[in-house]
């Protein structure tokens, strides 16, 4: 009996404490809102938003609901985070490996890059890219074509749009290619384990990935055309490109700043991971006759990844949360659209801020879950 009390009493007290605090906060907020004549409720989500958003991945207009405006903001946040995570990973791996290079110039430039971008506050970098770098770009009518068909202007980056016919056939072929690659890999692994034969899986995979979708063009009736951006006159002195896809400068500035900044942290994670694998491993692998490439792929990387993944996950989470700085440069992310305009128009501060907080929490936990799953997958399995 005594033991049970000892075991559970502190926990019960802790729970009670948390419940009391939350209860107090709720009641306090309730009383204060009542005093000030503010209603609490989520009914506003279905009301017409009556404001427009600059840039949206889904169909949206002012006659849609606040809930849809929320979705627009959320998708824009996910878009900018997704693109930036990809860029910062690629850049981070390159810089991280470069820091370990034996070439003096490469090694030191990489070190300088890391120290420079890591130590300037992110908001300043966003401001630099948006207010200094991108603002200096030419007006649409004065822009030179990059690669002949894309235009970088102060109003945004205009690129050709793809117009597909029978896109689904193409996608099925791509899927088929991926499935056959997985089958091929399993077959190759099996062959290696049982008969000791090696086949060039990578080469075959690339061939599959190119040939199958190509076949869909030849026989599947798939066709792809490009819609090029065309200069259009708005008034005597202002122009814009029509057709094609326009990437707003706000998005570009944000992606640049977020990926350059976060890549420095990813680079350090990569460096730490590779340096964390003891030298003996590399020497032992070489002594059994593996080529340098095989040493990296089969011995160093699998061990390094275990060290790299957890801290890199943190960087991805940071990047996603940092993307909320978008509001500073008019990129319509979740904070600007929902916790900004929608909050202002409805005045539902407590509701909107809690929804926004929960949303960021959910995004973060989802990223963490995916990375944990990946970490589990690559951890060393004791045989």
């Amino acid at each position: 009996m005594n033991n049970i009390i000892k075991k559970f009493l502190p926990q019960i007290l802790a729970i009670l404490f948390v419940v009391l605090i939350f209860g107090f906060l709720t009641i306090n907020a309730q009383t204060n809102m009542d005093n000030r004549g503010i209603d609490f409720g989520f009914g506003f989500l279905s009301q017409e938003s009556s404001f427009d958003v600059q840039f949206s991945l889904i169909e949206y207009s002012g006659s849609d609901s606040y809930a849809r405006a929320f979705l627009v903001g959320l998708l824009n946040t996910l878009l900018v985070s997704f693109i930036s995570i990809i860029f910062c990973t690629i850049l981070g791996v390159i810089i991280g490996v470069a820091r370990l290079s034996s070439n003096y110039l490469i090694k030191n430039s990489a070190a300088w890059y890391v120290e420079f971008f890591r130590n300037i506050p992110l908001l300043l970098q966003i401001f630099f890219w948006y207010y200094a770098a991108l603002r200096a770009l030419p007006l649409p009518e004065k822009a030179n074509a990059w690669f002949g068909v894309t235009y970088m202007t102060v109003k945004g980056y205009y690129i050709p749009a793809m117009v597909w016919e029978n896109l689904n056939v193409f996608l099925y072929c791509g899927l088929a290619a991926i499935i056959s690659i997985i089958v091929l890999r399993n077959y190759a692994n099996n062959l290696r384990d049982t008969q000791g034969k090696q086949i060039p899986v990578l080469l075959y995979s690339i061939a599959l990935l190119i040939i199958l979708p190509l076949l869909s063009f030849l026989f599947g009736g798939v066709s792809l055309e490009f819609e090029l951006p065309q200069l259009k006159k708005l008034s005597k002195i202002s122009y814009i490109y029509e057709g094609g896809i326009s990437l707003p400068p706000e998005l570009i500035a944000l992606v640049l700043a977020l990926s350059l900044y976060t890549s420095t942290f990813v680079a350090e994670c990569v460096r730490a991971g590779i340096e964390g694998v003891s030298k003996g491993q590399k020497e032992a692998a070489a002594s059994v006759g593996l080529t340098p490439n095989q040493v990296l792929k089969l011995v160093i990387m699998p061990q390094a990844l275990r060290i790299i993944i957890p801290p890199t996950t943190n960087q991805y989470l940071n990047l996603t949360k940092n993307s909320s700085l978008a509001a500073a440069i008019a990129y319509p992310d979740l904070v600007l659209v929902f916790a900004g305009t929608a909050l202002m128009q409805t005045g539902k501060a407590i509701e909107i801020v809690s929804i926004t907080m929960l949303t960021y929490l959910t995004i973060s936990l989802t990223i963490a879950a995916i990375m944990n799953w990946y970490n589990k997958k690559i951890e060393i399995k004791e045989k």
Partner: protein
Amino acid sequence: MFKIIKQLTSVVAMFAVLFAFSTETMAAKKSKTLENTKKRGFVRCGVSQGLPGFSNADESGNWTGIDVDVCRAVAAATLGDATKVKFTPLSAKERFTALTSGEIDILSRNTTWTLSRDADIGLTFVGVNFYDGQGFMVRKGSGIASTSEFKNGTSVCTNLGTTTELNMRDFFDSRGISYEPVVFEKADEVVAAYDAGRCDTYTTDKSGLAAQRTKLSAPDDHVVLPETISKEPLGPVVRQGDSVWEDIVRWSLNTMIEAEEYGVNSSNADMMKTSNNPAIKRLVGAEGELGAAFGLDNDWNLRIIKQVGNYGESYKRNIADTGILPDRGPNELWTKGGILYVPPAR
């Protein structure tokens, strides 16, 4: 035993009723906000982050503008000194939260009076100190002379969290024009973006356009289009629930307007005490007990006129003489062809 308890409860209940009743009558006469303001020694006033003519700080941190003058008038009325104001610059996005959360006691920040703001979010608008309407500014060289010449794809710079955002949607939607809204939190950022050519047009209240034009790199290259696409009655706002404070702010503003109507200004206010006109005498505290109604002394309105001036003086000092809008337009007294009309102070 049971009897005693019963008696005791009835006594307690009686006291409770008495107590509840007495606090009720107290609340009718006393303003919590006024009490706190007196205790603190200054009025907490939310203003813009810099809009010439309305609320703008100079290098040494002195705030001027007609929105600023409303807060100064309240300080003169309640504390006896128009300088005892603490100004908090707020973005359009922050302003209402700052007021409802009790960080400020008056929001005097070129804020449009609308139904949903007044009814929904715990705010009370006390009056109008500037009648405005939304307009567009474009580059002169564009040759655009009217909003009917806007084409599909026009990019529009504006402020976040304003009625402007809603009006421009109504405007472009009803004309079937597709446009790209670029919304910034701070007015300075909007101006900079428009100046750099990020946007083809800049939209906000016309007074705001006139004021912000002065901040552009070449103000003369830009022109405000003649059309007004909305009604924007701008005025001070207070928290809902303190009706005495609400009255103090409302009548501080009304005093300034009525003073202009009766020709009372900062230099002749003292002499007006001996005027033959009872309306004027009430306005300078020489007759009646007007201040007592909201717990102030009888010179509250005289102090406003002496220290801040009447509405006409404030307009001239802040908006006309600075070259923002020399013409008073609708912001002229009703007796002179405008629509400024306030209930009588009696």
